[in-house]
């Protein structure tokens, strides 16, 4: 049943899942989310860690009532915070486990072998979450024309097939490259938080994890 569900969904884009679920007595839990668009600077300020890493394992686990998708990463370098060489686990609410489906659409997806630059924040339970859902996750891919490392943001629903190898390339004119993002992040980390609120981040936390720009009290 589950295999079939995933196959249908993979092929179909956005589908009316009702027909599929009706084949069995599932109890899916779904979340629909409203997001704020975050700039790179806002994501940098909201992050405890910004790392470049390789995904080594992805699995779904039931924690309490909820399903969480967990991605283990090996960190190569840090743009904010100290994590180089460490193994971390990123948590994302939602996933598919046996015949249980929990969707948080817009959530970042990971696959083994994927090289990523990811903006991470720690919640009160100590879990590492991606800032702004998929906004805070970039896949590093070799530009097929120039050979430079470019960044791709792409996600699909958690009940669909995801393989970073086959995600679409951004249009040439819209491509962003790793050095651009890294320098933007480093500059922001060096400059510090500007004191402006960021939706979903407390002022106390922003003060705690950032230096303050000159003039910010």
């Amino acid at each position, binding site marked *: 049943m589950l295999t*079939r569900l995933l196959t*249908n*969904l*993979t*092929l*179909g*884009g*956005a*589908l*009316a*899942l*009702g027909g599929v679920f009706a*084949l*069995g*007595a599932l*109890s*899916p*839990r*779904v*979340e*629909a*989310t*409203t*997001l*704020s668009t*975050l700039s790179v600077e*806002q994501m940098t300020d*909201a992050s405890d860690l910004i790392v470049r890493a390789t995904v080594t394992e992805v699995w779904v686990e039931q924690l309490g*009532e*909820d399903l969480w998708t967990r991605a283990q990463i090996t960190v190569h370098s840090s743009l904010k915070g100290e994590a180089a060489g460490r193994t971390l686990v990123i948590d994302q609410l939602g996933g598919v486990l046996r015949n249980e489906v929990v*969707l948080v*659409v*817009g959530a970042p997806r990971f*696959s*083994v*072998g994927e090289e990523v630059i990811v903006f991470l*924040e720690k*919640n009160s339970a100590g879990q590492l979450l991606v800032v*702004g*859902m*998929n906004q805070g996750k970039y896949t590093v*891919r*070799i530009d*097929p*024309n120039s*050979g430079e490392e470019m960044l791709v943001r*792409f996600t699909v*629903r958690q*009940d669909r097939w995801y*393989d970073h*190898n*086959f995600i*679409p*390339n951004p249009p040439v004119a819209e491509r962003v490259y790793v050095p651009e993002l890294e320098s933007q992040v480093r500059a922001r980390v060096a400059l510090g938080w500007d004191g402006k609120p*960021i*939706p*979903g*981040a*407390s*002022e106390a936390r922003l003060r705690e994890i950032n230096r303050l720009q000159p003039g910010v009290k």
Partner: protein
Amino acid sequence: MVAAALLLFAPSAFGFELTGWVYAPEQLPVNFYMTDYMEDSLPQEVDVETGRTYQENVAIKMFCNWHWTPYCDEVLPARWVTDYQYEDANCAIFDYEYKGIEPGNEGEDPSDGVVKFYWDDPKDAHATGVNAVTITRSDQSFYVKRVGATKIYGVIPGNDIVFNNDIDWGTTEEIEAGCSGDVRGVEATGTHEVGHLLGMAHSCEQDDACNSNTLQTATMYYSGGPCATDRNSINDDDITGITALYGPFVRFNIITENDDSTAVSGKAPLEVCFELEAEEETLAEIQTIEWAFGDGETSTESEPCHTFETQGQFTINATFTGISEACGDWDHTQRELGIVLVCGEPEPGFELLPVNGLTYQSLNQTVVDTYGCVDGLTWEVFKGGSASGDPLFEYNSWSPKFVFEEEGDYTIRLTAVGPGGESSVENVITIEKTRSCSTTSGGGAGLGAGLIALAGLLLRRRR
């Protein structure tokens, strides 16, 4: 089951998509409660006219924005009724009732069957940038047949709406009076979430292939941008969606060999046939049907077949008009997002770029414009100028880096597979230690070099 996260910056002309859940008639009215947390960015005083807080009144208003009932006139402040009553989904039939504040705030739990509004993300499960979330547990063991034989909607036993903390919320009146920064309209955001609660999901644009980030950034129309009220009203797509769930509705299915399939994929040209599903009386009410197949072609037949000639993921729209006794003229467009995936043969391509010494970086130029049309990849490396015998090595990562042990000619074959078939490309590469490589059609004698895949993962991912 379908619900897309939304970013509030996409342009207008959205369609709707249905989540796959619905309140059954016997579940109505939707009774909802409030937790006792007071959000400090919102008015705190008790409204003298209603005896309720702003948070309570605005939660009622979030429902009334979708479908105005006499209950709204009875319980909302009179000024809200006169100033902020919009067009609503008058052909939809559902009602709701606010049941008051329920003490305690231990955390959302949609499975308890009680609709609650939380204002402070009590589980701290929502990261920066998330404004509000609707959490639904839909129990498929109790379902209703909304229309037809195969489209079955789950009944909602539980729903919660969770507003994130540390959001600068504003009232509609405050935002209309002018604001700056990232003040979010709580009424607009919450109305959007109530749309989810009732069964609305997100969509993509009319002609979008729905396989790009656009799908992820699309919304139902009603939503709240920063300091913006331009979309604080229900639009035709919203009305269509709610009417589809709670009013007269026709939908279509694709006809496939597998009756359970809700999508189709295959190699171009691909013929797909469509059939209608509706209550008998609704079918009798239909006046016109217009089909748009997403590839620029249209039809006015009742149940057409259409051949897709080109690769793409296509969204099908069928616009129905009808006349019913209950609500007069009605019309809606049913949209099935990306249900037709048409693929040409994969188009693999690559070059090798010298990096250092005998290390070469592959540049994978395989066309992946349509997600799903390439779903497997194999690199094979052979000694010499032809792909004969067993490969020295094969692997399946996207852009592996090669380290050759010796100079010489190698044949590299890249094979891509997908719904449109399988195809390969071979290049004979002359590997030289200190100069750039060249791609030739001929081949010299191989030197029997070994090969090491540095970055290539020895992982074959299958669907």
